[in-house]
């Protein structure tokens, strides 16, 4: 019988939750790296017992970890992230230019075909790549040539938080950066261009249609339709049908189109999930009701999914990397909250069950479907 392994990064360590394919009985393992912020863990699809983890601390900086046995044991790998050449500068809060400074790794994206290849998204925003299992990291500096001098950190930091590898065109990569936007390469990272046409940020930018500067919170893709991307922006849920050449709004009847994560059903490319948050000033669910919203039409028409979720006095948030799906049948949907709950739906969102109630604030959730 198949199994699932849920990789949970929290403010105070990593946890690994496992169950068989029925997803009823869960084993909780952790904390790993207790006391450290684990921004993200992700497994290699090519070698599922290989996991990569970003371990960070305000005191002791960035540590990178790798496991080759599904998280039983870990080995520290290189934490040396050097910006290529002279790092240069980006826009700063006071309008001056500020040097790029490495702070942490937000997101790890292993290659789907080679377990030794992994990409890492950094704050200050840059994309790094390892081809040796993480022993050495090289920046793909062309990204910062895509108007990087105009990028400016938002309140959460100038972080590269999303990396999507096109499964049909290996030379194509999409990335997203807070307060900068989406960027795409079609030559494996040598050159990049902004892919933000159609995004509108009237409350955040002097030019609401600017080429860069939009606060993209998350993008998601179904591997069978790699030209279709869905986006949860600071405000607005968006989609593109042409690989980011143009975006259109699909917020439809959502109670709020502010939020952080967005995810696509494993078997239905037009079924998507978001978790609406009241506003940019109040990062909690509207009316104190934790509701996942699902669209089966690729946006615009949304239904609230509430069964099993708290429907009063709930003021948690769900962060951008804290939602994921498994590939079992029916598709399982998972998300973690800043209140330390990890909820799981074994039926594509109809019902929700808390796997754990009381972890530290959840920063990231990934799911592996294992044979």
């Amino acid at each position, binding site marked *: 019988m198949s199994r699932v392994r849920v990789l949970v990064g929290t403010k105070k360590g990593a946890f690994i939750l496992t169950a068989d394919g029925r997803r009823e009985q869960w084993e909780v393992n952790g904390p790993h790296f207790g*006391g*450290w912020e684990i921004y993200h863990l992700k497994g290699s699809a090519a070698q599922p017992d290989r996991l990569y983890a970003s371990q960070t*601390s*305000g*005191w*002791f*900086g*960035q*540590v990178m970890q790798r496991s080759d046995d599904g998280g039983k044991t870990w080995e*520290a790998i290189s*934490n*040396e992230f*050097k910006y290529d050449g002279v790092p240069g500068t980006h826009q700063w809060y006071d309008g001056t230019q500020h040097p790029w400074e490495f702070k942490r790794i937000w997101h790890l994206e292993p290659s789907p075909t080679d377990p030794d290849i992994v990409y890492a998204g950094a704050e200050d925003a840059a994309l790094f790549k390892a081809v040796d299992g993480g022993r050495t990291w090289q920046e793909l500096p062309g990204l910062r040539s895509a108007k990087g001098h105009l990028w400016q950190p938002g309140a959460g930091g100038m972080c590269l938080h999303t990396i999507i590898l096109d499964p049909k065109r290996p030379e194509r990569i999409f990335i997203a950066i807070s307060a900068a936007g989406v960027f795409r390469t079609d030559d494996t990272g040598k050159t990049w261009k902004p892919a933000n046409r159609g995004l509108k940020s009237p409350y955040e930018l002097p030019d609401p249609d600017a080429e860069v500067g939009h606060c993209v919170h998350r993008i998601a893709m179904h591997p069978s339709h790699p030209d279709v991307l869905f986006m949860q922006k600071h405000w607005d849920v968006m989609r593109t049908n042409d690989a980011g050449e143009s975006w259109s709004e699909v917020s439809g009847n959502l109670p709020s189109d502010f939020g952080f994560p967005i995810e696509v059903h494993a078997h239905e490319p037009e079924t998507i999930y978001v978790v609406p948050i009241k506003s940019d000033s109040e990062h909690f669910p509207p009316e104190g009701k934790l509701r996942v919203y699902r669209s089966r039409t690729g946006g615009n028409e949304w239904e609230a999914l509430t069964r099993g979720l708290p429907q009063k006095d709930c003021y948690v948030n769900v962060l951008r990397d804290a939602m994921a799906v498994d590939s079992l049948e029916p598709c399982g949907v998972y998300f973690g909250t800043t209140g330390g709950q990890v909820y799981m739906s074994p039926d594509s969102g109809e019902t929700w069950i808390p796997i754990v109630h009381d972890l530290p604030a959840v920063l990231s959730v990934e799911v592996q479907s294992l044979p």
Partner: protein
Amino acid sequence: MIHVVLPFHLRTLARVDGDVHLEIEGPATLGSVLDALEARHPVLRGAIRDQVTLIRRPFVRFYACEEDLSHEPPQTQLPAAVVNGAEPFLIVGAMAGG
């Protein structure tokens, strides 16, 4: 023999139970003891000082013989009592809330 006392998280990271005992060749300075520590435990590179600039991380402090050496330059000679092992060299995670 210099006895280096690490904070909890760095002991865990370096997988050591107690103090780290280091023999330093040449002058025992702030810089040379950190060089020797990182050579013994490469996983600590970047955790105490920046890997490129070698500047101390803001919330890491260096204490010895009841003196704060955190702001001293790397070539600063360690006190004789630290060099002969009578007193430890303390690497401390600063109080920083949270």
